[in-house]
């Protein structure tokens, strides 16, 4: 692959290290999180799909300024909490960099949206969005992060539409990362024996299983005994 001297190479170049180090993506970020490596194999791809991934990864779409703006926005949308890292620590900018190439319908709205945002910050503060102070950035976001029910500021609609997309992509990138799934608390994707809703949850919701159904449910104790039925379809073991 042709290496280009930019963050792009680091972000999409299939670098073999487990952790990607970059200083350009976010001014205060030295090291990105554990999920930033974009794998080109290992999730059950066909040959055609592997080629697709390689092709997408080799493409260049977003430039450094755009990625920096995305990183800044991501961390305003999901800053670190007391127990979980920020969006950039979870690798969200790298995800967005990939997804705008993989799903090109995102491309123009994201790139145009960043231009709009810079236009707005220039209008207000004579600076590009990334160069604004945190307070200035939030002042703009406060105006575009909520829908304008009464249509009082239609001139800000492009910003609202852009921010809604950024918020969606940030949330989806974050909560599909290892860090985000831990933060959410999703407890599945591991072998287990499902035995119904925990009793305390049933109690809280005032629900229970129908009495007539209870004897019919799986008995995990006998799961390995090969099933035997009588002639009428009654399971005997």
């Amino acid at each position, binding site marked *: 692959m042709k290496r280009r001297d930019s963050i792009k190479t680091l972000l999409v170049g299939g670098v073999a290290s487990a952790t990607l180090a970059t200083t350009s993506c976010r001014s205060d970020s030295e090291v990105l999180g554990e999920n930033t490596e974009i794998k080109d194999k290992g999730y059950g791809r066909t040959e055609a799909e592997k080629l697709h991934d390689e092709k997408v990864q080799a493409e260049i779409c977003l430039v450094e300024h755009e990625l920096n703006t995305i990183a800044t926005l991501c961390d305003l949308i999901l800053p670190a909490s007391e127990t979980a890292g920020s969006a950039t620590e979870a690798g969200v900018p790298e995800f967005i960099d990939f997804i705008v190439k993989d799903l090109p319908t995102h491309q123009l709205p994201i790139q145009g949206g960043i231009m709009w945002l810079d236009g707005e910050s220039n209008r207000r503060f004579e600076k590009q969005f990334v160069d604004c102070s945190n307070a200035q950035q939030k002042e703009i976001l406060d105006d575009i992060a909520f829908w304008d029910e009464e249509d009082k500021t239609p001139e800000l609609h492009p910003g609202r539409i852009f921010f809604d997309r950024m918020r969606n992509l940030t949330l989806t990138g974050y*909560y599909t990362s290892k860090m985000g799934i831990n933060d959410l608390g999703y407890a599945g994707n591991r072998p287990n024996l*499902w035995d119904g809703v925990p009793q305390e949850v049933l109690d809280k919701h005032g629900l229970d299983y129908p009495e007539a159904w209870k004897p019919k449910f799986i008995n995990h104790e006998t799961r390995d005994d090969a099933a035997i039925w009588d002639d009428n379809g009654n399971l005997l073991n």
Partner: protein
Amino acid sequence: MQIIKTGKIYDAIIVGSGAGGGMSAFIMANAGMKIAVVEAGPYFDPKDPATMTQMKWPWESPRRGASTNRAFGDFDMSYGDWEVEGEPYTQAEGTNFKWWRSRMLGGRTNHWGRISLRFGPTDFKHKDVDGLGENWPIGYDEVKPYYDRLDKLVGVFGTNEGLPNDPDGFFLPPPKPRLHELYYMKGAKKSGVPVIPSRLSILTKRINPERGVCFYCGQCNRSCNAYADFSAGSVFIFPAQKNGQVDLYTNCMVKNITTNDEGLATGVSFINKEDAKEYKLKSKAVVLGASACSSARILLNSKSSQHPNGLGNSSDHVGRYLHDSTGSELSGFIPSLMDRKIYNEDGVGGLHVYSPWWGNNKKLDFPRGYHIEIWGGLGMPAYGFGFGASAMNKYIGEKVGGYGPKLREDVKRFYGASIGIAGRGESIAQYENRCTIDNNTVDRFGIPVLKFNYQWTDYERLQAKHMVDTFEEIIHNMGGTVLGEKPGKEKDYGLLAPGQIIHEVGTTRMGDDPKTSVTNKWQQLHDAKNVYIVDAGPFTSQADKNCTWTIMALSMRASEHLVRQFKKKEI
């Protein structure tokens, strides 16, 4: 191009390795016949780590499972969907039929919902009830013994309920419902809609030493490496191969069936996708299990002086009466399910409860019924998770939008608080709804493609209206709000395009009269007795059920008939 021939003559060639073809291979190989299975896609074994997606995490995909390459997302185990590269299809004006193809060993059974419902007595003779469509030439009593054997052979969980048109069977024990399913049960009861444990072909208990038992990852659509769900490769093809009776031809796209002077089949002609050459295989019988539309296409492309209108098509009925299940759905937000305690509720891959059809059509403005499927719960996030998370606030009177720590709270508060309710119903087979050969278009292999012509009628639209009205009522009964807009008349009440439910049947329907049907009641072509069809093509009518369990029961029945004819030297 040179056509490569082989001197070997198989007892039978089976086209397709899914539910119908897989079952047929299993039956005929076990009966000692020498079989070739010709599959258009690659070899696939759910156990192979190189292709396996089961137990993968969303972050292992750079697109987090988005549907760029596979219609149901990166981790869904179907190679091919409504679009297959190099294999186009065309539409008559005003038609929007969606044609699903899974090109792989085992076909669609690697990813399907495992919803395994027997057709009931009424389903085979529905014309007697409402005068619409056509009766099957067989009844439930003739199919019941095959369903019974199928239950034990393949495994399906469920409960015997004694319902008149949703027959009992030999069931494995069902899993306990999830929390949102208990809410659904309560909401449905209030509307007089019955709810019973679902019937899925997933092993909640061992049935034989070859297959494992479910470990509740909820990912049957990824095809189970423990063979605890039904996939035709792991359950039929691999066991059929054990005694050396089966030659497997993968990546081989069948072009046509060859015939002799008497009009009987002599084998098939196929394109090997790996060397792009045409081959001919010979056999005493040909079994089509390529899927309803693919089998019709092969027949229509098999023209000869004996069969000038295509093989089996003297009636001009091949491709006609194509029909898919109806489908419409609503999703809802249930405030009582907010702020849930989080625990692992993956369960089996699919719904733990469902509603069989309960209505009385004499009191309704549409014929036939539908069953209800539901989804929801604390699922594994994938691309799309969190989209519109903040928008849910409008349903609890809070401000929509924002950023920062509040968003994290929103995502957690609303996680698991949405449910979806979907109807899958029976449409009436129509003479004009059909697929034909489009001689103006060929696929990558030089084979003329299918052209679809399909229109829904008001029967289906009014059924979809009943669906969304019912689902709205149930969502309200659950204390919830419908998410988004309930589709009205201008949107055909959300009725999905034909083909989208992926239950297409009827293209080679069975019947006693060779003038109005393609196969007889044994799924043998009226026009060539050594050709059988074991996919959903011979279905005279769909039911308010999914078709797979019936495809398999009938494939068992047809394949055993073939074996008997073969042993009697009738073919």
